[in-house]
């Protein structure tokens, strides 16, 4: 893995939001075709970091996508390689599910062109993958929070980007669909897609290949999820209020009472 080009890497990235510095010099490298989860307490700067990686925020320092400076890339080229699923982004209730997912094909379409057969096929596959196909004719306003989240996930999948960035993708999802998401991500990395996700539930985050642990705008640790040092770092940033144990070949985080 180390010999390959990283999908994304940052060099001394600082971010100032509202006059306050929220990221203090981040140096990170994300292996291509791997799933990395970002964890940390509230306000650690996880979502900000993800936005930086998506090229959505002005930064000092450098961000590279497959060794190209991210912010200097052509908009459309970047959009084809990077897919973004945000957190709590209000979606209007009026668009049909099908149209929402088709928005993910935008980076591949000409400005006024009608969707091609390939676009339609990709949208169908994405809707099937998140089990949202049956609602394709409904408008977003007629769906529950979890159903809506699955449609938005399908939208992000429809970009077919090499790198997927997801901020709290499990929000509103019930347990079976959380497991579906997990399998979806495994399937993506098997096809050499890089997945980077901010996750609140440490137990879910531990299923990733690698983990980035953040606290107060700094990277505390980056390492494999199976590594004991990673577990110690996670326990430390959460004030040792949780403990990580092995159970049936998986890692679980349990509250320390």
């Amino acid at each position: 893995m180390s010999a390959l080009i990283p999908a994304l890497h940052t060099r001394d990235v600082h971010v100032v939001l509202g006059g306050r510095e929220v990221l203090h010099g981040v140096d990170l490298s994300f292996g291509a075709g791997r799933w990395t989860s970002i964890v940390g307490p509230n306000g650690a700067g996880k979502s900000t970091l993800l936005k930086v990686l998506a090229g959505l925020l002005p930064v000092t320092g450098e961000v590279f996508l497959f060794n190209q400076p991210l912010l200097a890339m052509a908009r459309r080229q970047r959009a084809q390689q990077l897919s973004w699923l945000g957190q709590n982004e209000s979606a209007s209730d009026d668009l049909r599910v099908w149209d929402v997912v088709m928005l993910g094909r935008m980076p591949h379409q000409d400005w006024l062109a009608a969707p091609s057969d390939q676009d339609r096929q990709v949208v169908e596959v994405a809707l099937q993958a998140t089990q949202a196909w049956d609602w394709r004719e409904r408008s977003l306003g007629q769906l529950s929070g979890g159903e809506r989240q699955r449609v938005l996930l399908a939208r992000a999948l429809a970009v077919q980007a090499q790198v997927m960035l997801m901020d709290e993708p499990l929000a509103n999802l019930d347990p079976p669909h959380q497991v579906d998401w997990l399998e979806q991500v495994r399937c993506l990395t098997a096809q050499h897609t890089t997945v980077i996700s901010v996750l609140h539930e440490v137990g879910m985050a531990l299923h990733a290949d690698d983990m980035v642990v953040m606290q107060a705008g700094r990277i505390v640790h980056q390492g494999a999820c199976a590594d004991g040092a990673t577990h110690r770092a996670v326990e430390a940033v959460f004030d040792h209020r949780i403990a990580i144990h092995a159970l049936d070949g998986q890692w679980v985080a349990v509250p320390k009472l």
Partner: protein
Amino acid sequence: MTGHCARWSPLVVALSLVVLCAFGIALGSAVGSTGFESWVNARHDDVAWQIVWEIRLPRTLGACAAGALLGLAGALAQGLFRNPLADPYLLGSASGASLGVAVALALFGGNPFATELLVRLGLTGAAFVGAVLAVLLTLTLARGVQHTLRLLLAGVIVGVVLGAMASLITLMRPDVLQGMQGFLLGSTSFMGWTSCVLMFGVLLVCLVFAFGLSRVLDALTLGEATALSLGLPLAPVRVALVCVLALATGTAVAQTGLVAFVGLAAPHLVRSLVATKHNWMVLLSALMGGALLLAADLLARLSIAPQEMPVGVLTAVLGGGYLLWLMYRTQATGAKP
């Protein structure tokens, strides 16, 4: 949820609205203070012909065009600000136009040598200039168009301040009060062929731009970050859309005065009929706005004939009633409007 699920195809709605507009225009050219007679006699009676051709037809077509401009502007405003309560006047164009008219009336409204036509032309120009200047002021205060909340607040501030200035002028020059009131209530009765051609021309330009840029509005429904991540040039498109919004509103306001609620209600009416992307949305909202103002114009002429009601009063009552109904229905069914 019943009404909510029964959505129509956009094409069917568009065709129905076109038919409705055509019917409204035919009816609008047929009714007036002289009744159907002028229409029937138009072939062999010059006076009747003149009434239909020079007065009724242009004002009817004008009402349709102005309504379409407002409907289009409403759809753009609601898409751009991602707020279903946004209306075309929120960038301050309404109060800017009022101030322009107040100034113009105070300057040469009381002048006995100014002919009716000159006053009319002057007022139209003053309203348009006032509307454009107000929007520019709003944009300056908001330091550009990229921060939509700041833009909304700046629009509110500009609206209040310019409105107060217009009121002050009216207070100091009571003789302009009547003209001012007429403008504030909105009227479709003074439009000639020039107004029609102008408005339809602007409408066409605005529709082409709005249609071309509509995919950005679609992407914006998923939030700004997502729209940016899709590789869209958000900043320049926003500037262009604000220009289209200001041009459409300014043109309509200059010709008809402040016609209330059409811009707000038209997109909502469309949404209650179809779930569609913004390319259809802007087109259907324009058609819906045209049909609404046509209907209001007809009612204004018929309700207290041979007298005429200011059309703005009717749109306010009907539009307000509709929104109220929508609100209660939403509460009752728990459906989202």
